[in-house]
């Protein structure tokens, strides 16, 4: 007896539709498993080898998270090089418009939020051994192009994806 034909009794079957549903189900299982596996790589943020990024310039290097989540704290580590008594850090307007800074360690000696971004100053004694950690919460999602610079050196550009 043919199993693949639709029966009308005792229930009105739609076996063609049912077979398609089973195919969609199986594709869905693959997608769900793929989401979990991809999450392990760090593509969705919160840990994993793909999550952390590093850009290095003459006077500054930045350790950042490539993939962030909206309203979840993101961490940026700025490392200054050079023996000057004072380090300055400029973060562009994209950073200012996206993030709400919740903490900076060590505390800056001075700072200002301008229309073009943040200007922060750290004494080299305070920022010893030359690293500053900024904790910030993104409040909008999408691809954010951030630029950061220290002193007169050209800015370092990096891109962050903020998930909803």
């Amino acid at each position, binding site marked *: 007896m043919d199993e693949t034909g639709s029966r009308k009794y005792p229930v009105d079957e*739609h076996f063609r539709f049912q077979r398609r549903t089973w195919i969609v189900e199986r594709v869905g299982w693959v997608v*769900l498993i793929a989401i979990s596996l991809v999450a392990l790589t760090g593509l969705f943020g919160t840990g994993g080898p793909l999550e952390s990024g590093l850009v290095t310039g003459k006077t500054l290097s930045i350790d950042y998270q490539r993939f962030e989540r909206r309203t979840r704290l993101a961490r940026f580590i700025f490392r200054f090089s050079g023996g000057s008594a004072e380090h300055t850090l400029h973060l562009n307007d994209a950073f200012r418009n996206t993030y709400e800074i919740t903490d900076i360690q060590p505390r800056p000696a001075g700072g200002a939020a301008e229309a073009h971004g943040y200007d922060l100053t750290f004494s080299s004694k305070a920022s010893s051994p030359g690293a500053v950690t900024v904790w910030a919460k993104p409040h909008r999602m999408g691809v954010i192009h951030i630029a950061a610079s220290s002193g007169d050196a050209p800015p370092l550009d990096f891109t962050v994806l903020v998930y909803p």
Partner: protein
Amino acid sequence: MDTVIKAAAVYFVLWAIIRISGRRTLGEMTAFDFILFLIIGGSTQRAITGQDYSLINALVLVSTFVSIEVLLSLVELKSPLMRRIFNATPTILVENGRMMTYRMRRARVTEDNVMEAARRLHGIERVDQIKYAILEATGDISIVPAAQPGQSEPLPRPKELPSTPQPAAPR
């Protein structure tokens, strides 16, 4: 606005995931599955409400969920296809005492599942005592027992019923 969009997104994502998991997952819900569903509910709740625990947010959220439910039920009423998409369709697994193995394999139903339902619902011991076993849209298995010797046959199919003259409506 944000709450409505989030609620609608979560509704359809959850619907898709539950639909993908298949009917057997719902029909065979164990104590652990129940805990799992509570965890799913808790994690999505935090994603929707965020830090906003206000009364108006809860009101908007509940209104959105109920509105989607009502709208979908109206769509299902109009369209049989949408009804099948949203609610699945029943599938016959045993026909006249014969297990339909291809269908059972696809639907992730074992012979034991069918016999368990047969025993529980009708005290049936053998598969040849089953006329039909049907996997319902809810994930439950319904059993129509075969007629036993000495018992009358089950009611004939509707189209086989002899046509009887209808009494005239009283005036």
